[in-house]
């Protein structure tokens, strides 16, 4: 894939970091605002699409290594399963850290959600790895086109 025009590259330089920070915020605040691991992970994974579309495949693979994302995905899933198993004396995915709070919500009191936030982060890593790996693998699959059908034809220029 050839790199796109200077406008797209400049916009990627400006905006992609904000997208990563926003996705991280959605993951980290998943336990008390709308969002969570799946949504924030999808937001962070669009960064990979931005990089690949703007800079092209040759420069993209000097920065991005696929085994890192594979490891992120595996570690996220394993951490989720481990945290779920830790509650097993009561039940699977039992929230063993959470402190039961009998009263009503007072001003300035922020409830700790126990394992919910930790599981959010684990699922966020898993979704980041999975969706980024999907994009990378599908891009590498286009080499099949070169070797069997004579190459890619058609990009914006």
């Amino acid at each position, binding site marked *: 894939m050839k790199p796109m025009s200077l406008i797209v590259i400049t916009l990627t330089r400006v905006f992609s970091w904000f997208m990563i920070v926003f996705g991280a915020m959605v993951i980290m605040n*998943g336990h008390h605002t709308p969002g969570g691991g799946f949504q924030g992970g999808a937001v962070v994974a669009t960064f990979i699409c931005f990089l690949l579309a703007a800079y092209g495949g040759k420069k993209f693979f000097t920065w991005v290594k696929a085994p890192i994302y594979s490891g992120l995905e595996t570690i996220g899933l394993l951490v989720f399963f481990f945290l779920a198993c830790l509650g097993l004396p009561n039940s699977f995915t039992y929230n063993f850290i959470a*402190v039961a709070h009998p009263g009503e919500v007072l001003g300035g009191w922020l409830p700790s959600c126990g*394992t*919910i936030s930790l599981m959010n982060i684990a699922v966020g890593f*898993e979704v980041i790895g*999975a969706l980024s790996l999907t994009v990378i693998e599908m891009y590498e699959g286009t080499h099949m086109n070169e070797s069997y059908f004579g190459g890619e034809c058609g990009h914006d220029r």
Partner: protein
Amino acid sequence: MKKSLFVASAVIIGGLFYGVFTMTHPFGNPGKAVMDDHFIDRALKDRSAQNIVTSLVFDYRGFDTLGEAAVLFTAVCSIGALFRAGRKRS
């Protein structure tokens, strides 16, 4: 024979659909919401969770979320298997 079987099954399925449509609640007037009220009341007290949706997804029905994550993992595995032929690295 085939035609009569088709007609009979059409009548039976149509009757079932008719029964379902007449038995649904009127719009904007749901039946008892015992389950919702239970979670809304207990989510903060039991699990100290402010966000009830997240507490449902990751706590009360965490097994469901594990299955969801496993579905994503399986999808990525199948994509890796499908596009392996074009990969340049070994």
